[in-house]
C-alpha cells in the first residue's frame, strides 16, 4: 500500500516538473515580446531607451531560460509561486480569486454533463434503434464535431442577444459593487457558459454509456436474469447499472481535462473571469509565472481526477479492489518463480550448446 502511495507521489512530482518545464520552454520560444505586448505598440515607440531597458528588466526578458526556470523553481520549492507581472499581484492570489469562478463553472458543467450523459446513454441503449435512440445519437454526433467556441457564440447570440434572457458576459453585473452581488446574480451570469460546457461534454459520456448498455444487455448475465422472470428494464436496474457505471465514471473523471480545455475557450467567448481567461492573458502577455502557475494547478486537477477514478474503481469493481492483495501477490510471486526457473534452465542449455 505504502508503495502505491510513494509511486503516486513520485509520479505527481515528475508531472509537475515536466509541465512547468514545458511551459517555460514554450514561453521562451514564443515570438511575443512581453514588454511590447504589455505596454502597447504606440507607447513603446514613444518610450525613451532608458524606460525600455527598465521595463525589459521588469519583465525579465534577456535572462536565459535556465536561469529563469531555476530561480522560479527555487522559489516554488520555498512555497512562493512568484508575482504575476500582468496582474501585478502574487500568482497565488490571482489563481485563487479566479479559481472560485472557474471551479463553480467547471463543477456544474461536469456534474450536469455526467448525469445527463449517463441517463441519455442508458435510455438510448435500452431502446436501441428507437426514435429516441436515433435522436440521442444524432445529437451526440453533431455535438462531438462542433467546436466549443462556435457553440458558445451561437448560444450567446440566441440566449443573450436575441432573446435577452441572460447577460452577454462577465461573472457579475456591470457597475455593481462586489458586496451587492448575490448568488442569483452569479448563477445568472454562469448559466450560459455552464450550458455550453455541459452540452459539449454530454456527447462523449452518452455515446460511451449507450455502447456499454447495449453490450451489457446482450451479456449472458442479463439473459440469465431475464430467464428468471425479470424484464429487460428490471434486469438492467438490478444487474446493469453497476457494470455500466464503471466506464462512465472513468470517462467522467478523465473528462476533467477536456472540460478544463473547453473552459478556456468558453471563458474567452463569454468574457468570464476564470482561470482559462487568465491563462490566455498570461500566454499572450508573456507572464510566465502566472502561466506556469495555472498550468500546474490544471495539471494537478486532472491528475486528481484520474486518481479518483482509480480509487472509485476499487470500490465499484470488486475484481480490482485491494481487499484481496494476497491473491495478486501470489500471482506475482508465481510469475516471478516461473521467470527465475526459466533463466536457471536457460543457462545450462547455453552451456550445452557451446
Amino acid at each position: 500500500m505504502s508503495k502505491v502511495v510513494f509511486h503516486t507521489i513520485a509520479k505527481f512530482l515528475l508531472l509537475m516538473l515536466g509541465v512547468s518545464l514545458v511551459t517555460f520552454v514554450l514561453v521562451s520560444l514564443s515570438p511575443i515580446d512581453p514588454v511590447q505586448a504589455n505596454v502597447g505598440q504606440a507607447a513603446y515607440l514613444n518610450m525613451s531607451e532608458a524606460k525600455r531597458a527598465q521595463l525589459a528588466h521588469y519583465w525579465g526578458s534577456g535572462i536565459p531560460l535556465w536561469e529563469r526556470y531555476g530561480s522560479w523553481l527555487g522559489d516554488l520549492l520555498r512555497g512562493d509561486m512568484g508575482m504575476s507581472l500582468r496582474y501585478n499581484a502574487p500568482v497565488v492570489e490571482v489563481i485563487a480569486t479566479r479559481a472560485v469562478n472557474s471551479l463553480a463553472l467547471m463543477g456544474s458543467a461536469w456534474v450536469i454533463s455526467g448525469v445527463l450523459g449517463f441517463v441519455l446513454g442508458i435510455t438510448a441503449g435500452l431502446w436501441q434503434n428507437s426514435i429516441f435512440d436515433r435522436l440521442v445519437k444524432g445529437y451526440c454526433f453533431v455535438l462531438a464535431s462542433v467546436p466549443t467556441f462556435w457553440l458558445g457564440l451561437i448560444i450567446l447570440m440566441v440566449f443573450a442577444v436575441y432573446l435577452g434572457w441572460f447577460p452577454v458576459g462577465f461573472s457579475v453585473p456591470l457597475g455593481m459593487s462586489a458586496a451587492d452581488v448575490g448568488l442569483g446574480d452569479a448563477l445568472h451570469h454562469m448559466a450560459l457558459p455552464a450550458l455550453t460546457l455541459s452540452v459539449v461534454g454530454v456527447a462523449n459520456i452518452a455515446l460511451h454509456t449507450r455502447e456499454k448498455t447495449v453490450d451489457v444487455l446482450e451479456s449472458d448475465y442479463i439473459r440469465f436474469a431475464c430467464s428468471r422472470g425479470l424484464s429487460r428494464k428490471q434486469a438492467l436496474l438490478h444487474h446493469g447499472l453497476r457494470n455500466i457505471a464503471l466506464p462512465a465514471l472513468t470517462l467522467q473523471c478523465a473528462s476533467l481535462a477536456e472540460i478544463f480545455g473547453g473552459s478556456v475557450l468558453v471563458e474567452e467567448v463569454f468574457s468570464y473571469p476564470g482561470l482559462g481567461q487568465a491563462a490566455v492573458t498570461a500566454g499572450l502577455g508573456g507572464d510566465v509565472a502566472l502561466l506556469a502557475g495555472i498550468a500546474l494547478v490544471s495539471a494537478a486537477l486532472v491528475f486528481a481526477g484520474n486518481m479518483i477514478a482509480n480509487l472509485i474503481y476499487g470500490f465499484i469493481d470488486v475484481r480490482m479492489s485491494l481487499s484481496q492483495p494476497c491473491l495478486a501477490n501470489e500471482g506475482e510471486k508465481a510469475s516471478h518463480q516461473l521467470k527465475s526457473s526459466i533463466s536457471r534452465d536457460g543457462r545450462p542449455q547455453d552451456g550445452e550448446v557451446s
Partner: protein
Amino acid sequence: MSDKNSLSHSQSHTDQEFHHHHLHASNSHHEHGAHLLQVEHLSVAFEMYDEDASFFQAKKRMVNVISDVNIAVHAGEIVAVVGASGSGKSLLADTILGIYEPNAQVSGTIWYEGIEQDARSLSQLRGHGISLVPQGVASLDPLMCVGKQVEGFGHPQSTRQARKKRRRELFSRYGLEESVAALYPHQLSGGMARRILLCCALMDDPRLIVADEPTPGLDLELAEQALSDFRDFANQGGGVMLITHDIELALHVADRVAVFYEGSIVEETAVSAFSSPELLEHEYSRALWHALPEHDFVGEAHISA
C-alpha cells in the same frame, strides 16, 4: 391438443408405442394427462441480408435456424437434446423460455402442462415454472455477491426473509457453506459455480428445468455430480431438458434422447434405442452411435474412404 384429448391419450398408448413423434422411456409419465412441455412444428427464422448478393444490392431474406422441431418433456424424466455445437440448440432453449431476438420470426405451438402458450404467457413462465440452468459463471453478474443473486429479484411477492431462508436451505442441500453467499462470481471454483447456478434455478421452484450445456469445463466427477442433481430433480417429479453436445453424457443420464441435426430434431427416442444401431431411425443418429468410443468408431472413416 385439447384438454379432453390429452386426458384420454394417456390411457391410449403404452410405453413403447410411438406417439407424438416420440417413444417413451420407462419413467416418462403423463401427469394430469398431459406432457409437462410439448413443442410442435416450432420454427425460428431470422431476417438477414442475402450473403451471396453484393453489399449494396443485398436484399433481406428469412433464414431458418430452427425448422419444424417437435419435442416433448414428461414429468419425471430427463430429455437430452444432443447436437453439434452451433446447430441452434441454445436458440431452442431461448425460444422455449420466450426470449426472442427482435428480428426473429417464430412459428409453431408450445404447450406447458397441457395449456397452449403464446409469447406473452411463455415469458410469464420464465422463473415461474420454467427455469434455465446456464452454462457457466458468465451468467452471473460479476459485480454482485452470489447470495443476493441466488435470492434473485423476480419474485417481489415473497419477502426477502423468505427468499433468504430458501436460499440457505438450498445452500445446505448442495453443500455450499454460508460464507459462499458473500463471494463474488470470480471467486467461485468451477464446482461451486455449477451449484450456485442450479440453486438460482431451484430458488424459483420450477417444474421444468432447461439446462443449456451445464457441464463443459467441469471434470468428470463434477459433471457426474451435476447430472445426478438433475436426476434427483426429475425423480421428484420435475422435468429436465438437458441440452448438450456430449452424446456419451446424454446416454449416461437421460431417459430419452432427441437428436438435433441442422436445426431440426431428426429423432426422439428412448435411451435404450441407442443399444443397437438397428433401433435408430435416422442416419445421423446412427452416425452418432458409431462415433461412440465403445463402438467401432470408424463410421466417419468408412464414409471418407
